[in-house]
């Protein structure tokens, strides 16, 4: 799989990943262009989440983690010497599978938490809170109770709050790890809408188990697979249209048509 | 090591601890356990029937056992005034008046004029005195109070014949530090410079402290030794023909003029049951064992070991009366 490094916002080159002695990913090459949504699909345990975490240097927090290859953000290697992990994470936002708002903070403080945590000055706090919540399409639901505890929200609202929290940092890339798997249909629909809107201003990478969701929201799709006892890797990567309607690899075909998993 | 006979346990006087432990260890007819708790505890525990025998430096004046019992003088010994004043070796000269002043907090410095006047050859430290005293009910305290009250005056006793010390209404300076037993007190005086305290001679010999000479009624300064204490004790008169409470005790007069005597010397009494059903956990065998144990102490152990440990055996003038007292146990 030969990908040309073009004007891409984020690209992963020859990424291999280890946990201790065990290799779980081998030679992954993917490019995530600006303003595009990329879906990562594949059966459980094939390394999607792990790969996602290498993209904003969350991977290194796990003791014994190992990595080979490079990740370029606008041409700069985020693993280069002297590159500060914190500055990378500020540019590459992340939303987790389980909504994880800070339980001790109000809705408003959750939005501002990123700035406070990274020690940046907050100007125009009110405006920032409103824009972020609006972009995550949750403003209308919470505008009257910004002071309430974040956990008083429903699961779907919490997840959109977490998205808003990331947006407040104004990231260049947003990583989402199965953001809807714990949510009801209504919330799922709303988050999918949010994703389409956000893709106008940033690159988005989303891991999902839901084939229909991948088809609905993504522009390009990468199919990960790990055979038993071998490291996982990308089997096929291309436009979503192609992956779902004309996959080249028979395993991709099997997977997207629900023959396993 | 398994002892023959029965087990008898006693508690009480910490003044007597050194002597009693030594005898208990050497005694083989029965298994004797002695725990140094202070005379007060010894007496209440004996009165409550928790132990088979007791040891106290002051006889009962209240809280009597509910049944008949015997009080037996076992041995005596001096109470030493000790200190750890830097640069002062043994033999500081003290009077009852100075001791009372130090304990009450009216004399607070080693270089106080009154002390200086008696110790012209010694270079006293220009430091405050750290006073340590016994807080729990002890025969040492009881005798000290009697002694100071008779010689200086102004010392009052609380219940159980002890100084009412810790409550603040007592006679000790509120800056003084209190200890539950004389061994803790000894450790304190040993570890602290410029401290002052008092305890039995046997502890004073083992501890690394200075020992004061005390002015006696005859007007001479005498160091606490077994023989000096013996002179004082053997000059006291025993009480007979009274009640359980008084029989066997000595009528100690601290103002008595005895040449060469160390004035603050005290006597340890053994407590033993006379009633068959007392104490609650006693059997006839345990009473016989107590009898045998006391006989052993008076006849064998104390005469042999007292001198090296800093105690005095009962003098020959008293011995017959004491042995007769022991016969009434059981």
């Amino acid at each position, binding site marked *: 799989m030969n990908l040309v490094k073009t004007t891409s916002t984020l690209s992963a080159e020859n990424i291999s990943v280890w946990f201790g002695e065990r290799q779980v990913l081998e030679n992954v090459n993917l490019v995530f262009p600006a303003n595009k949504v990329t879906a990562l699909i594949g059966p459980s345990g094939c390394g999607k989440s792990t790969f996602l975490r290498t993209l*904003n240097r*969350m991977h290194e*927090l796990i*003791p014994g983690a190992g990595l080979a290859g490079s990740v370029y953000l606008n041409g700069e290697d985020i693993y280069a010497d002297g590159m500060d992990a*914190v*500055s990378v*994470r*500020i540019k590459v*936002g*992340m939303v*987790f599978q389980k909504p*994880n708002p*800070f*339980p*001790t*903070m109000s809705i408003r403080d959750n939005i501002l*938490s*990123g700035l*406070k*945590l*990274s*020690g940046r000055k907050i100007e125009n706090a009110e405006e920032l809170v409103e824009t972020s919540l609006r972009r995550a399409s949750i403003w209308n639901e919470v505008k009257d109770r910004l002071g309430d*505890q974040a*956990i008083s929200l429903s699961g779907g609202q919490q997840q959109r709050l*977490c998205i808003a929290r*990331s947006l407040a940092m104004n990231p260049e890339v947003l990583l989402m790890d199965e953001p809807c798997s714990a949510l009801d249909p209504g919330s799922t629909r709303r988050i999918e809408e949010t994703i389409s809107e956000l893709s106008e201003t940033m690159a988005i990478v989303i891991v999902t188990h839901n084939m229909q969701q991948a088809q609905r929201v993504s522009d390009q799709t990468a199919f990960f697979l790990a055979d038993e006892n071998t490291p996982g890797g990308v089997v096929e990567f291309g436009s979503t249209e192609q992956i779902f309607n004309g996959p080249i690899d028979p395993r991709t075909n099997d997977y997207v048509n629900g023959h396993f998993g | 090591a398994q002892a023959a006979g029965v087990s008898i346990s006693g508690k009480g006087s910490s003044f007597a601890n050194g002597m009693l432990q030594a005898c208990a260890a050497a005694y083989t007819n029965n298994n004797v356990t002695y725990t140094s*708790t*202070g005379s*007060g*505890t010894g*007496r*209440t*525990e004996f009165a409550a029937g928790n132990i088979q025998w007791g040891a106290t430096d002051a006889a009962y004046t209240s*809280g009597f056992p509910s049944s008949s019992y015997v009080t037996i003088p076992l041995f005596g010994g001096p109470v030493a005034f000790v200190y750890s004043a830097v640069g002062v070796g043994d033999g500081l000269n003290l009077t009852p008046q100075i001791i009372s002043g130090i304990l009450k907090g009216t004399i*607070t*410095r080693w270089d106080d004029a009154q002390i200086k006047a008696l110790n012209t050859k010694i270079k006293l430290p220009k430091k405050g*005195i*750290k006073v340590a005293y016994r*807080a*729990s*009910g002890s025969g040492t305290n009881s005798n000290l109070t009697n002694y100071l009250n008779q010689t200086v005056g102004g010392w009052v006793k*609380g*219940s*159980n014949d*002890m100084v*009412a010390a*810790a*409550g*603040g*209404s007592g006679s000790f300076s*509120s*800056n003084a*530090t*209190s200890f*539950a037993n004389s061994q*803790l007190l000894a*450790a*304190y005086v040993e570890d602290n410079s*410029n*401290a002052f305290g008092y305890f039995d001679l046997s502890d004073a010999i083992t501890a690394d402290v200075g020992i004061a000479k005390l002015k006696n009624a005859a007007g001479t300064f005498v160091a606490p030794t077994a023989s000096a204490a013996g002179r004082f004790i053997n000059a006291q008169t025993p009480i007979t023909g009274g009640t359980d409470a008084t029989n066997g005790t000595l009528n100690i007069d601290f103002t008595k003029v005895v040449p060469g005597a160390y004035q603050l010397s005290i006597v340890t009494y053994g407590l033993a049951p006379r009633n068959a059903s007392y104490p609650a956990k006693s059997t006839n065998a345990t009473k016989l064992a107590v009898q045998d144990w006391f006989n052993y102490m008076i006849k064998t152990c104390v005469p042999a070991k007292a001198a090296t440990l800093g105690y005095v055996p009962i003098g020959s003038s008293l011995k017959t009366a004491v042995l007769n007292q022991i016969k009434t146990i059981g």
Partner: protein
Amino acid sequence: MSQSQTKPQRRKLSAGPLSRGDKWFFRTTSAAAHFAFVLVALVLGFLLFQAWPVLQSQGVNFVLGSTWDPDSDPMVLQLGPMLWGSLLIAVLGILIATPMAISMAYLIVFMLPKRWASVATTLIDLLAALPSVVLGLWGLLVFTPIAAGWAEILNKYLGFIPLFQVTDPENGFMRSPFIAGWIVAVMIVPIITSVTREIFSQLDRDLINGALALGGSRLSTFRRVIMPTASSGVVGGVLLGLGRAVGETVAIFYVLNLSMEINWMNLVEPHGGAVASWILARFGEASPLEKQGLMAAGLVLFILTLIVNYIANVIVNRAQPWRKNQ
């Protein structure tokens, strides 16, 4: 599709007969469990029965007054300085122990590599079981001279603060509430560390990862996410330690100069109080009447720890909705 218009009637569940074995199983265990009530009632009952005459005759002054004179007629038994001393020492112990315990827990959970973390955890758990008589032994023979040195320095340089004032600096700095506080701190640090470590390690990792993914640093994550989320649990651990500190007997007995003269806050002044140690010191030679007074002191002490425990419970269980899901 559903035809029932009336509200459906809830049925009684578990209607079926329990097997004989199950009946016995539940009866026995339930009897055992309810023995907890019996035991608490027995302790309170017996102590109250013994203490009642004293509580009645002394009234509220039993806890407020500061004279303990079993010789006067009528007897005056007032526990004030001991109660206050127990609290003073416990609070001092907590103030010393808490920052250390939190540091230790943070070190173990967030800084040490796994192997060392487990070594440290074992060590701390072991130290939590240090018998207090051993601690007293160490306190008396090893620690007291050292801590007296610290107290002297504090008095020398910070003597203008009432906390570190003494009436007589010549008197040595041993056997003060300051030293007892340190001993108590050494005793409860492992307990608080254990609880805090447990809570830190059970913190939702997603929450910490969330903070890190938002660009949080070590300090900001600790301050804004870890501590606020863990605080109520940590407070629970601290209060557990406080309960222990208030009830500590033997260790304090060895290192404190028990005195019925109240010492409000002169930490390095060589006298203070502690109810439990007072009981131990007095009971041996107490007359039956004074013994009742000591029983009353025990009762008051137990009630004090019950109150501390209750507050701990309330704080730990107080609105923590994010814990319910776990």
